[in-house]
């Protein structure tokens, strides 16, 4: 089997990897590169637990091939905190108990950050629709919504 050689950037670090033609970027991140923060909940783009950023766009890692990462800029949950400094969203999720089991949390954080970067003042309605692709079965979403709205307000200050 011939592998595909891919040169890319992950969380601002240059990375090279080999993958099969059928391997998703999620498989590559988790199995090849050991970045297991992105989770696989469904493998079909319905739960958002594998949400990552590629060239500034939010996507499901399970629905992109590893080979497509060539020359792209990939960002994952592992790149969200700066050194030992949590991102305000990460900090607020902890403070407001916006997670219970935590499996969906990386996806929600990446998605919420993506929203606030393009819309610093979302309405609750906009936020709920933006996050509709991220399933959470524990929280009923309430504290997640509250946390993101508070961070949005804090960041505007």
């Amino acid at each position, binding site marked *: 089997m011939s592998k595909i050689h891919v040169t890319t950037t992950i969380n601002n670090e240059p990375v090279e990897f080999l993958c099969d033609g059928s391997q998703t970027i999620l498989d590559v991140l988790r199995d090849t590169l050991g970045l297991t923060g992105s989770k696989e909940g469904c493998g079909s783009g319905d739960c958002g637990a594998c949400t990552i950023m590629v060239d500034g766009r939010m996507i499901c890692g399970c629905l992109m*091939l590893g080979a*497509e990462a060539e020359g792209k800029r990939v960002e994952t949950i592992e790149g969200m905190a700066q050194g030992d400094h949590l991102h305000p969203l990460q900090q607020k999720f902890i403070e407001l108990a916006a997670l219970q089991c935590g499996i969906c949390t990386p996806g929600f954080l990446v998605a919420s950050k993506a929203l606030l970067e393009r819309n610093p003042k979302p309405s609750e309605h906009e936020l709920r629709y933006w996050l*509709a692709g991220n399933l959470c079965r524990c929280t009923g979403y309430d504290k997640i919504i509250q946390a993101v709205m508070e961070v949005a307000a804090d960041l505007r200050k």
Partner: protein
Amino acid sequence: MQDIQYAAPKTIDEAVALVAGANGSGRILAGGTDLLVQMRSGMLSPGLIVDVKKIGELTRISEEGGGFVIGAAVSGAQIGEHARLPKAWPGVVEAINLIGSKQIQGRASAGGNLCNASPAADSVPALIAAGAIVVVQGPKGRREMPVEKFHAGPGRSNLTPGEIVVGLKLPPRAAGSADAYLRLIPRTEMDIAVVGCGVSLTLQNGKCTAARVGLGAVAPTPLLVEEAGKALVGTTLDEAALGKAAAACRAACKPIDDKRGTIAYRTKIAGVLLQRAAKIAADRAKG
């Protein structure tokens, strides 16, 4: 073990040659939001994946003579962010932007939604209503066909072997024109349409002078419902006209009972959505 090859050609000719040379085992990858799901479920096991996102013409939106050409691989998010397209074709854009989540929107393309050939594809009824044209290129060159002629049945298109979709042409807009798309899903997001309805119309001095209606998820392929359009033309879109158009939509339905809806429900909803979508389109046309 079958090895899956991956290629990312830079020209349409190369892509066509790759697909044509793959003896039917080649699959086009644009956003991949259908292809990768089908591969994973074992429905498809392509020998060659041809990623078309490195081809300029397939990845841009261009404007020609007042109309638009949407490259087949342009993502929903890019379409939604275009400076002029959403104003000219709000119904088409909202239909494309309803496909999946925001994450899916970062990848899924109108071309892919078309080629997946689901009867329930969200973009297709709106494109049919809009009178959109599919631009196709294959080993024998380029050809065009109306969107409503593209599908042959669930999961099947009228593409000939080796042909790929290059783009979708939206015609120039006459003054007083607007479109709208509505779908019924049980949740507010993340579902496949139980019924989808696109309406495009032109109003002059309060009268409807042109109208086209597209319906999805009510037959083996998305439908152009000419009778519904006719019922609206020449009217002020009063309740009687809307009722007649709704009846035409219901009459056009040949749905199935499945996990997403019943025959009776789909048929009823086709009429409901026609009325609602037509009102939205009319409000938009009035500005």
